[in-house]
């Protein structure tokens, strides 16, 4: 039982928190702009590497580099929108989607060029896990879960308590009606990009802290992020967050040795769980698990 918690549930929660932050941003962008943003994973990698640059240059811890990573990723998202997406906003959804694919490739190529293709890390060294009775938890995992919770709370307050957040939800409901009521659509779109970029950059640093950095790290979790967003009902940020948590847990628990000594699913196939969930959701419940969030 404790093995389940220590080695499967907690890591699942950590992975889920990272998926959740990425999926929330995807869902926001989709809700406000009706746009499946395929460069989202590469923005995540960009945030992770921006933190790495700060760690190397300033000798700070990656936790302290999070604000720098977020601040560096926001202009990239805004520039991609101004240079590419804004011009294509009135074209077919497929055109916009492919343009984001191209944007993602550009960001990834930039990371390969500057940082090289090899795996790297923030060089945090080894910290012994916290032992709470029989529970063993990595300190970094605790911070990641807490950080994601704080980010979710901040986003919730933004969306429900602020004028700008209400305008974002109004745009997601009905962009034409939002215009009639006097909403500056371009401004709301910029704010949406900024929020999504901050969330995904933090997710990138968390992923880098939890595992390793490679230029392809974000693209590797992009499909899981989409699966989480769709599982929660795409366009609904809270659904995306819950979808992310569920998916992260499902991936980790899929290799739990429930029957006999062998894992349910070989760990190598873990990422396949996201695809299975994506396909099953689209077939069985395309509107997502949580309607009306």
């Amino acid at each position, binding site marked *: 039982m404790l093995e389940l918690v220590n080695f499967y549930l907690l890591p699942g929660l950590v992975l889920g928190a990272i998926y959740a932050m990425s999926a929330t941003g995807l869902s926001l962008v989709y809700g406000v702009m009706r746009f499946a943003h395929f460069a989202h994973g590469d923005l995540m990698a960009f945030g992770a590497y921006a933190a790495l640059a700060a760690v190397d240059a300033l000798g700070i811890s990656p936790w302290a580099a999070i604000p720098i990573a977020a601040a560096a990723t926001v202009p990239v998202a805004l520039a991609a929108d101004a240079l590419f997406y804004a011009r294509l906003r009135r074209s077919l959804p497929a055109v916009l989607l492919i343009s984001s694919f191209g944007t993602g490739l550009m960001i990834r190529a930039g990371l390969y060029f500057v940082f090289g293709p090899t795996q790297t890390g923030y060089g945090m060294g080894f910290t012994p896990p916290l032992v709470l009775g029989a529970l063993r938890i990595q300190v970094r995992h605790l911070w990641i879960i807490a950080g994601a919770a704080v980010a979710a709370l901040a986003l919730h307050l933004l969306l429900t308590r602020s004028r700008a957040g209400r305008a974002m*939800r109004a745009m*997601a409901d*009905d962009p*034409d009606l939002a215009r*009639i*009521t*006097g909403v*500056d659509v371009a401004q709301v779109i910029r704010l949406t990009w900024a929020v999504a970029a901050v969330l995904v950059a933090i997710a990138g640093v968390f992923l880098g802290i939890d595992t390793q950095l490679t230029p392809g790290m974000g693209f590797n979790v992009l499909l899981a992020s989409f699966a989480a967003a769709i599982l929660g009902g795409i366009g609904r940020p809270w659904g995306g967050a819950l979808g992310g948590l569920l998916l992260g847990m499902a991936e980790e628990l899929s290799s739990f040795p429930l029957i006999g000594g062998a894992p349910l699913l070989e760990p190598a196939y873990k990422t396949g769980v996201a695809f299975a969930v994506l396909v099953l959701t689209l077939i069985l419940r395309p509107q997502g698990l949580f309607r009306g969030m």
Partner: protein
Amino acid sequence: MALLEVRGVVGGYGEADILHGVDLDADAGEIVVIVGANGAGKSTLMKAVAGLVRIRAGSIAFAGEAIANAPAETMILRGLAYVPQERNVFPSLTVEENLAMGAYARPAQAAAGMARVFALFPDLVQRRRVAAGQLSGGQRQMVAIGRALMLEPRLIMLDEPTAGLSPKFCALIFERVQAIAREGVAVLMVEQNARPALAIADRGVVLAMGRNRATAPGPALLADPEIGRLFLGG
């Protein structure tokens, strides 16, 4: 000079013109009702005034200022509010949040606006925290009209405000429309329920095939046998 002056407006969606030179006036405190067959251009005319349909020729002046083809999001600050026929509330936002969106351009006026709207539509008070998507059609229409009134517009445009509503709600909406006009607001309304709407109209405008067919006080149009036969279903 009238508050709203539309002269010779030509326009429509894409290549196809729906309006072929339409005139329209609306004065402060006046109820103007546009009637006509389906496809006559009633809603298109309203959308052209609201900045949602581009016009190719003609002019639209509001309070003496040319507003033709001005961006739709600037209209509310000019004092011109528009309530579309369908999709006229934000379904996932609460009643209160919908009304707050009506004051988006001037948040300082939100509290006063909300008090006014709740006085006009007391039914909404106890549903203020309910998502607009869960309201009945009549209540939704109240939210939509209330949202448009938040910044005290000088002109409010209502596209078929009683479509699909029960007779009780229709009567209520028409009664509130008269109350709004008594405050000095110009009301421009497109209505399928032509007879009850014309009965309260200071000015009735009959459109046919994107052109003006007749303009007269509402009761006079109702009394005209030819208009009755051609446009009001006998």
